[in-house]
């Protein structure tokens, strides 16, 4: 019975043990103590060094765990008899334990590279970005061209990506009531254009990166990017001048685009995006006069005009793969 109780007490003690192991500060203190003792012994050469003291004064430049071993050996040596003393590596081969002046070593200049931003929260390099968005017209007060869009990018480096985007406008163009009012009041017709779709190949460059503290409580990361590319934009005039006879077909125009955007990361793979992009193309407008040959399609077109379709694109970004490993530790 007594044996059983004793055994149970041992079991209980063993159960409590992990808590002690969890507190990892102790070995460090031991190591620091050993180091301190080593220094104090170095500074008092008059005291006659014993075998164990010799071991501690020849501290190696090894790891922290090495030092712990030295400290452990010291306490063991003092408890055991000299006959049971185990020879350390420094006694067996002193060349393995070079003398190091810790003070001068501490003053040594370290040329470790320091990066301005270490371990960027959301790395982009070698990741795909899928970016669905909704676009709004910013500069066309006559016809707005809202519509869904999708962009896909692959980041060659952390700051440079290649990709493509597609906008769909067909059926979503909105002719402002202001056009009719102006036509009625001033007897003037403004040629109007509606868009069907656009697509482009783009480069994206991310020169800006930062973080915000929200309400002094949480931190989120964001970046700013520039984007530009070339593609096509399909559009057609809305027949305003002679709607009874004119019906236009869609034509694809070469369109350049340039813009800038802001991306706010909710986590390492999901972000909200806000982008302002200008799609620049030469637009063939409806002729503002009616020619005698009203069925001649070539006479339906008038001036060509350089057009800037500036649109805001509000969306989300998903980065793939979802996770990664940093090359260097923090």
């Amino acid at each position, binding site marked *: 019975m007594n044996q059983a109780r004793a055994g149970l007490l041992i079991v209980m003690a063993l*159960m409590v043990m992990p*808590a002690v192991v969890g507190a990892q500060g102790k070995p460090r203190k031991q190591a620091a103590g050993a180091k301190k003792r080593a220094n104090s012994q170095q500074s008092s050469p008059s005291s006659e060094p014993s075998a164990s003291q010799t071991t501690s004064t020849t501290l190696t430049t090894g790891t922290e765990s090495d030092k712990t071993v030295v400290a452990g050996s010291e306490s063991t040596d003092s408890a055991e008899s000299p006959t049971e003393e185990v020879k350390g590596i420094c006694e067996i081969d002193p060349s393995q334990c070079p003398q190091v002046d810790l003070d001068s070593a501490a003053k040594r200049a370290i040329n470790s590279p320091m990066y301005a931003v270490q371990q960027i929260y959301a790395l982009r390099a070698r990741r795909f970005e899928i970016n669905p968005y909704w676009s709004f017209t910013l500069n066309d*007060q006559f016809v707005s061209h809202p519509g869904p869009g999708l962009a896909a990018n692959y980041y060659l480096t952390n700051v440079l990506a290649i990709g493509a985007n597609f906008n769909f406008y067909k059926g979503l163009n909105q002719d402002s009531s202001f056009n009719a009012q102006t036509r009625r009041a001033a007897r003037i017709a*403004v040629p109007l254009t509606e868009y069907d779709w656009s697509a482009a190949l783009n480069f994206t460059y991310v020169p800006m990166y930062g973080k915000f503290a929200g309400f*002094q409580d949480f931190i989120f990361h964001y970046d700013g990017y520039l984007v530009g590319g070339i593609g096509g934009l399909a559009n057609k005039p809305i027949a305003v001048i002679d709607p009874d006879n004119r019906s236009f077909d869609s034509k694809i125009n070469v369109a350049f685009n340039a813009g800038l955007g802001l991306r706010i990361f909710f986590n390492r793979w999901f972000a909200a995006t806000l982008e302002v992009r200008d799609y620049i193309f030469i637009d063939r407008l409806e002729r503002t006069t009616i020619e005698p040959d009203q069925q001649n399609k070539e006479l339906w077109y008038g001036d060509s005009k350089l057009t800037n379709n500036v649109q805001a694109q509000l969306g989300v970004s998903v980065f793939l793969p979802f996770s990664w490993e940093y090359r260097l530790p923090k």
Partner: protein
Amino acid sequence: MALSPRLSLFFLDILKCRSCTVFGGLCVLFGSFGFPSQVQAQEVQVTGPLAGAPAVRALRLHRKGRFEIAPTVSATLLDEYQRTILVGARINYNLFDWLAVGVWGAYGAIKTTTDLSDKIQKLNDERFNPSSADYRTGAGETGRRLVSANVGKDFKSQLGTIDWVIAPQLTGVPFRGKLSIFQKIFVDTDAYIFAGPAFIGVTERSSCGLGTSIDCSTRNADGTVATKPTVSRVAIAPTFGLGLSFYTNAWTSLGVEYRALPFSRNTGGFDSYGASQDERFPDGRVSEKDREFKFNQMITISLGFYFPTKLDSSE
């Protein structure tokens, strides 16, 4: 791993003994109480010494307790007939780093017509030009009569304009952070929102037509339509927006903000509404009914100066 015979007997004894079993159960119970110490160690790792600490330490308080005086330049967006550049200033006192009270005032210094206005002016000049091809045709005369109530000789003069704005406002600064540009330039940044009432000096075409003593189609001696007279009024509207400040040093900043001033006004000086049940057709007079709700958006850039110039930091 096989238990030694002695250890097996030990566990057998324990199982046979009821009190030992109870004791053993208690040990397991207390032992399990011992486990939380390990979990606690994990919790310390998660929250660590930063438990309860603010998200940012030693935050440079660019705003708290400081006055901000910022000259501003604003440009209106999505204008139909006339663009306005407003020159002004914003004065704020920052009660906290996250809240400021102040006022923004601006004067519409530059007003430029859009391409559409220029076209209307050009076409109207041709209509009333006796040497033009259509002048003596029936179509020419019809055109002149149809537009005479709406378009005067100098079209630009009848356009609705924003002359000045005074807007007392509260500014909240929920987001405060920093921006790295090319990983070389680092700028303290904050994002803010603001709102308040705005008093807006507006000029627009004066009332005319039925019920007034002014004829909407008054002609000059040469047969052209007289330039439409305008009047000024003060509109009161909400104003709100958001912006970013980039602190270039301890006492200056660059800013960009978006502002909306939604209210109704007659931007073209036309008679557009008032007739029919839903009043969606011209009624032969220019009145309040011809005002149309506009969002009146603008982009502002600013250069802020902060006083006192010395900067404090949080703990």
